């Protein structure tokens, strides 16, 4: 989807590694959508996702010297994003006050920031995509939030970001077998969740 393992990227990476912020910022613009969308779907909170996205690129720039190719740059970035998301949850567990606040944010499905994020104007221009109404989008996001973190991450990377299994294994540091299992369980669990709301699904999505 976004993978462009071209020579252009290699050149940008080399320049970034020698401290060229402008070169790095070109990479930021190239990958910020992937990073932001993964963070948003994992967390269900637009503000938090924006913070995580910014921190991902700051951290990546600082530790760019440790990136030596081999894996795709996108996988490396998404690995940092995932670490930051897990870290956020870990902090929440340590400080229940903050988590209470965050949980309220997450439950607030009328949150205008989130809705604005989800209603993408590019969608209407693309007749290939089904236009899912907002209620359904929120339902799916709630279903995602019900999944255990590893399954949620695997499903997001596969079905929303469109990453191949091999790249998901690289991002999550797992084997292909584990990736396969998490995607399957995540989908099955989400299916069970969505089945409770048949009436919200578009006709073509309703089970026969």
């Amino acid at each position, binding site marked *: 989807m976004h993978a462009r393992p071209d020579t252009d990227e290699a050149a940008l990476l080399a320049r970034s590694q020698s401290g060229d*912020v402008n070169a790095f*910022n070109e990479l930021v613009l190239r990958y910020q*959508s992937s990073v932001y*969308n993964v963070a948003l779907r994992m967390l269900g909170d637009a503000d938090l*996702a*924006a913070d995580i996205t910014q*921190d991902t*690129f*700051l*951290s990546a*720039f*600082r*530790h760019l010297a*440790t990136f*030596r190719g*081999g*894996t795709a740059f996108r996988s*490396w970035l998404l*690995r*940092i994003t*995932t*670490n*930051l998301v*897990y870290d956020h949850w870990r902090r929440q*567990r340590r400080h229940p006050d903050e988590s209470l606040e965050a949980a309220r944010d997450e439950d607030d499905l009328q949150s205008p920031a989130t809705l604005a*994020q*989800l*209603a*993408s104007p*590019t969608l209407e221009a693309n007749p290939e995509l*089904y236009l*899912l109404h907002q209620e*359904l989008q929120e339902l799916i996001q709630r279903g995602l939030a019900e999944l*255990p*973190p*590893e*399954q949620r991450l695997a*499903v997001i990377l596969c*079905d*929303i970001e*469109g990453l191949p*299994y091999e790249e998901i294994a*690289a991002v999550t*540091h*797992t*084997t292909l077998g584990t990736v*396969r*299992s998490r*995607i*399957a*369980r995540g*989908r*099955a*669990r989400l*299916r*069970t969740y*969505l*089945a409770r709301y048949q009436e919200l699904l578009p006709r073509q999505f309703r*089970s*026969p």
Partner: protein
Amino acid sequence: MAQDYQEHPTLEQLSAYLDGALSAEEEAFCAAHLPHCASCRSELASLRLTRDLLRALPRATPPRAFTLTPELLRTSSRPEGPESVAADAGASAEEPVALLAPSPSALSPQTHQVRPTGGAGARRQHLRRFVQVLSALAAVIALVLLLSGALTWLREGPSSTMSTAVQRAAEASVTPPFAQQEGPVRTPAAATEESRGVRPGLTATPASASSTAEKQPDRHLSALLGAALSAPVERLLLGGLLLIVALVGLLMTRKARSPSWPGHDQDEANRQAAH
């Protein structure tokens, strides 16, 4: 999975079949099975619906450009800035890895190197490790003290009281058991005074006690310590205190350890549940 293979494809196989991520053999098995099995077809269809719904979700447009500015790079070097968050993430990278990856063989070296050596998280972990080691050490010393104290007690009988201990301390500091010849000769009175003054400090902080005893070859101090330790009562008391401190230390580090993720990877979503 092997026994299912003869009958129906597993949930995992059907899910991967959707993505064309099966081995040629598995793919052929599914393709051959599906036309003859309505339940597997409906299973596959429901998985496909779920996947298509996810795929149809609109991509969110990032609210702004996340390009790095000089200000961002500057402010992030503050201790509470994103850098510490990032360092924390890097330092704790091990935990999600351990949780996400049952087989470390899949680790790629690049992402492994994301973890910086410094950072608040790393420092915290080092401190925790340090306290743990120290507590363990204190526990060992405490047990030795308790054991030897109890043995001496049993041998000499409970008649050896505090006063004899102090007396011993005085004697010992005059002729220190493991002091060299040029060691200062103290009057018994001064020694007892000092041994009283020193003892509470020693028992209160076992870490400093052991370190001073080990690192600082202060003959006078070690003489007092040796004298104090030669009395079974004091050995028992000191051992008990050390044991308490050690246990407290170990308990505290256990609580401070980051919580692990709940093991959510249960087998709740297998084929039976689906049907």
